[in-house]
């Protein structure tokens, strides 16, 4: 049947042969190398059969030698379909029109997206864009280049520090960065600075207020470090000395940085045996089409015989024109991984423990704290773990603002 498989594409006709022993005409055909199929004898003097469109010209030649009446009763296949289709003008017109419509629709702006800025600025940008002719429904090719738009926007909207303009098909994406207009800080009410932790003062820098402690003083939490109450008499101000001699208190917002050495006792345990995982470099990729919970494998079948597998899954939505289909393309990378366990000596474990303790402490105290020194106070080995009791010295700012309560 291979010979007749493509007959629909190339077109075929049904031939009706009338005459005496009509089947012999088909025998002539096959002898001449013409493939004939579906031959049926309908009446004693009539026989129908199919043959390919391109063989018709040979049939005409054959018929001159024989005395049969030939009639084509049916035409099937793509060429006839196409001819019939072309004959229908309105259908052709419809297709051309729809092409133009698609062309038209894909060349106008559908959406202007503004991200990264608050609503009021978004509104302003929108207005500016409208006046520049960038709005849903505008022709894309009548617009200026994104670069120009970008520059113009930054110039025209003073609140914008920067704007990124990107054209993705029929969508204009704008990403703005707002200029933060720094307002003057509100005047802070009078306040003291007090200690938050116990420690020994190492460095002091007081920009406002009256220092109550000195370097190398020991302070406890809650101790007043810098006072916001300034006695006027202590101020060396010539005018004031001239004007008023009486004692009068002035209240200010104390400000300053008090760096003190503080200490922490930290307990950490470090195991003597550690294990970590690493990739061997062997990997295999698999591809799926996913709808809902159903995964249809596209490429990469079977599972590799890795002992331990690290999976990396990458999902992408499939788009049609601009709509997202509920189908996802999933790429899975299977990496072979191995577990390696390492035994450490006691010193190494102690080192690792100290490192860990330091890291935890800096995380807890913030980036301004500096670890000065550490000391192992106590060290025991239990169940394959080293237990450490550490003493850590840190230099940090211990000052905290405390508002002065003003008696009404």
């Amino acid at each position, binding site marked *: 049947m291979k010979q007749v498989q493509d007959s629909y594409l190339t077109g075929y006709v049904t031939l009706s042969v009338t005459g005496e022993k009509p*089947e012999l005409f088909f*025998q002539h055909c*096959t002898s001449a*190398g013409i493939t*004939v*199929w*579906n031959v*049926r004898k309908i009446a004693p003097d009539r026989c129908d*059969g199919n043959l390919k469109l391109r063989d018709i010209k040979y049939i005409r030649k054959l018929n001159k030698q024989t005395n049969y009446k030939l009639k084509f009763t049916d035409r099937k296949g793509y060429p006839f379909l196409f001819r019939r289709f072309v004959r229908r003008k309105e259908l052709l017109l419809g297709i051309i029109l729809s092409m133009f419509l698609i062309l038209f629709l894909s060349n106008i702006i559908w959406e202007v997206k503004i991200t990264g800025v608050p609503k009021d600025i978004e509104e302003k940008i929108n207005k500016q864009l409208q006046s520049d002719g960038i709005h849903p429904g505008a022709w894309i090719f009548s617009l200026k280049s994104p670069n120009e738009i970008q520059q113009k926007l930054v110039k025209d909207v003073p609140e914008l520090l920067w704007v990124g303009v990107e054209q993705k098909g029929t969508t204009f994406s704008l990403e703005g960065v707002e200029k933060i207009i720094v307002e003057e800080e509100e005047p802070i009410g009078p306040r003291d600075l007090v200690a938050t932790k116990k420690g020994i003062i190492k460095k002091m820098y007081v920009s406002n207020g009256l220092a109550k402690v000195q370097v190398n003083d020991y302070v406890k939490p809650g101790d007043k470090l810098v006072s916001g109450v300034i006695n006027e008499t202590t101020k060396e101000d010539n005018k004031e000395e001239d004007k008023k001699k009486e004692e009068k208190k002035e209240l200010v917002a104390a400000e300053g940085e008090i760096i003190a050495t503080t200490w922490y006792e930290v307990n950490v345990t470090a195991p003597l045996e550690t294990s970590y995982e690493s990739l061997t470099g062997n990997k295999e990729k698999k591809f799926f089409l996913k709808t809902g919970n159903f995964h249809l494998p596209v490429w990469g079948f079977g599972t590799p015989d890795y002992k331990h597998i690290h999976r990396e899954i990458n999902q992408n939505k499939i788009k049609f024109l601009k709509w997202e289909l509920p189908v996802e393309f999933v790429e899975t990378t299977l990496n072979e991984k191995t577990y390696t366990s390492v035994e450490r000596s006691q010193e190494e474990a102690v080192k690792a423990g100290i490192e860990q303790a330091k890291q935890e402490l800096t995380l807890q105290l913030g980036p301004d704290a500096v670890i000065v020194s550490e000391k192992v106070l106590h060290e025991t080995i239990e169940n394959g773990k080293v237990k450490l009791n550490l003493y850590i010295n840190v230099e940090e700012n211990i000052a905290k603002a405390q508002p002065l309560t003003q008696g009404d």
Partner: protein
Amino acid sequence: MKKLQQGIRPWLIKYLALPSDIVLELPRITIIGQLHVYIENHKGLATYSETELKLKINKGFIQITGSAFVLKMMLPEEILLEGTIQEVKFVPE
């Protein structure tokens, strides 16, 4: 010469195991149930109707009878017959 050829052919089949349909120019008939008959190496169509198909072969005819016959495919030396087959008969000349 021709006689020698005639004599050598059965020998070829017997000792060299060559397929007999090619060596002796005999038709090869494949029948699938009652449904299909596939005839290769025939020498032409003699008669065909809804109930009967007669094909020329080297010596004589093959006559196939049955009902609802349709020639599914016709190639120069091959025919695929479809229908309900009842009988396949060799008719000497």
